[in-house]
């Protein structure tokens, strides 16, 4: 306990967390993951058409919200061009053509485009799929994310080595994802209190989501949970424990092994019981160790894994 009072301990811990030697492959893997995911969501929406809605839909949008994102009605053609520029930049980030510049351009343009989805009634489009993409792509653009798996790199050919410069951006991306759950749990406790986890509250949410015919696609699991107080208590307490506990995945390899795959199960449960979709699940690949995955993939291709690769695979699938 005494060591916590020593400033140098905090400095060392800070450096160990943010700047431990890391692989350029992890950063490149994150770049490809976030760019591919963002491209998928961007092209799944009709964002330019939102600018072309009749002016009456935009009549209640304040000037500060419009200027904040430079989103104005009546320019669907311009927005269409911007969507194409963003898509091309994201493709550039995926294949590694000017990867940092591509990440920067796509991150900035997504900051402008993503709010179009909901701006007519709310100025912050969280939970619609592109929130983390904006800050993640910009963070990647500030880091040497093009040092590996890139066709065109701004620097010359340098053999990728382990460096702390490859770690802090990955840690930051992991933090963005973990914050979703932490703040989600925090908001529940702050707004509703610990009684959010009570059986009556969970039952009410389950019934509301399964009775609303406009969102009811799945209803069997939600109704089943709502009918069982014990199941409701488990869902409530389990949700808060999970949302607060996921922070440990930042610091503990063992927690990462257990909790990160559980995120996918958690969201599958929410989907089947409450009909709510959380698109960011593929972004969890930022927790993967791409050195190990690459070795595994190569061994699959060659059909004869080397002893080192087997050992590496056995040892860990997540970075330290």
């Amino acid at each position, binding site marked *: 306990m005494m060591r916590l009072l020593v400033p140098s301990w905090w400095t060392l811990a800070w450096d160990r967390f943010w700047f431990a030697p890391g692989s350029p492959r992890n950063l490149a893997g994150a770049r490809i993951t976030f760019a591919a995911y963002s491209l998928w969501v961007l092209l*799944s929406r*009709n964002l330019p058409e939102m600018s072309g809605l*009749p002016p009456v839909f935009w009549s209640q949008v304040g000037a500060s919200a419009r200027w904040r994102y430079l989103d104005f009605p009546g320019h669907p053609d311009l927005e269409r061009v911007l969507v194409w520029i963003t898509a091309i930049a994201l493709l550039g980030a995926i294949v590694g053509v000017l990867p940092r510049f591509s990440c920067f351009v796509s991150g900035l343009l997504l900051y402008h485009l993503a709010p179009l989805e909901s701006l007519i009634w709310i100025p912050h489009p969280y939970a619609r799929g592109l929130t983390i993409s*904006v800050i993640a792509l910009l963070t990647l653009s500030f880091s040497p994310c093009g040092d590996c798996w890139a066709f065109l790199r701004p620097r010359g050919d340098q053999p990728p080595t382990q460096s702390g410069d490859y770690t802090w951006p990955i840690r930051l991306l992991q933090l963005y994802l973990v914050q979703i759950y932490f703040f989600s749990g925090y*908001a529940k406790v702050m707004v509703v209190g610990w009684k959010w986890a009570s059986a009556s509250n969970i039952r009410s949410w389950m019934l509301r989501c399964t009775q609303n015919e406009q969102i009811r696609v799945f209803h069997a699991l939600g109704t089943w949970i709502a009918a069982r107080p014990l199941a409701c208590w488990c869902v409530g307490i389990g949700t808060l424990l999970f949302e607060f506990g996921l922070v440990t995945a930042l610091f503990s390899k063992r927690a990462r092994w257990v909790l990160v795959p559980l995120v996918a199960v958690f969201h599958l449960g929410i989907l089947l019981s409450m009909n709510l979709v959380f698109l960011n699940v593929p972004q969890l690949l930022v927790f993967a160790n791409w050195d190990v995955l690459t070795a595994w993939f190569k061994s699959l291709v060659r059909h004869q894994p080397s002893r080192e690769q087997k050992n590496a695979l056995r040892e860990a699938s997540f970075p330290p």
Partner: protein
Amino acid sequence: MKINIVSTFCFLMFVTFGLLVAVLGRLLSATARRRLTNVFLLAVLFISFGAGLTQHNLWPFSSWPVLAYPAPTDGNYPALPRIMGVDSSGNEYDIDYRAWRPLGLEELLSWIKLHLARLDPAARDCVGAYLLGRSNLARVQALSSAGLPYPNPWFGPLTAPTHMLHPAIWSHPESVPHNSFVGLRVYEETWNVEERSHDPQRVTRVLAFDYRQ
């Protein structure tokens, strides 16, 4: 307005510090670069935890208030809008959520709930005419052999869904109304979750908007 200004300032701070790390960092010694990166990291921590812990949504630094609302103790949730198409015989039909594209159903319903009643009659008619046009176009598309198109034809069924799932009620031509809509009605639906768990029909509907062509 305040939150828009603060959010913009935080985002600009994030981009500025990030650019300093990316551009200036190359010209500095390793120690100075590390120091600059630390400043950037501290700025990001300050903004992101500031947004989360104060529960002020500084998007893209969000406070993530997911389901952070209390369920009403009496089981009566606030009213939820529901849009119905009306044909020339006066029959009412539910409309597939895909009809409203580019608007997502949850965005449209939230907008209706917040703003429709505040509009003057001419503006409300403008909304009604637009939504009626969208619903009739979607009805024709749903009746065609190709069906209602996906927002991105390349992705098809792999298109990213919206935050809330919605049943695709016009997936089969036999479930699509064959007559054109001549009007639209918006109802506000309320129900008590406990009562409705015993009787699914126990819903109270209040007509909030009636548009005729």
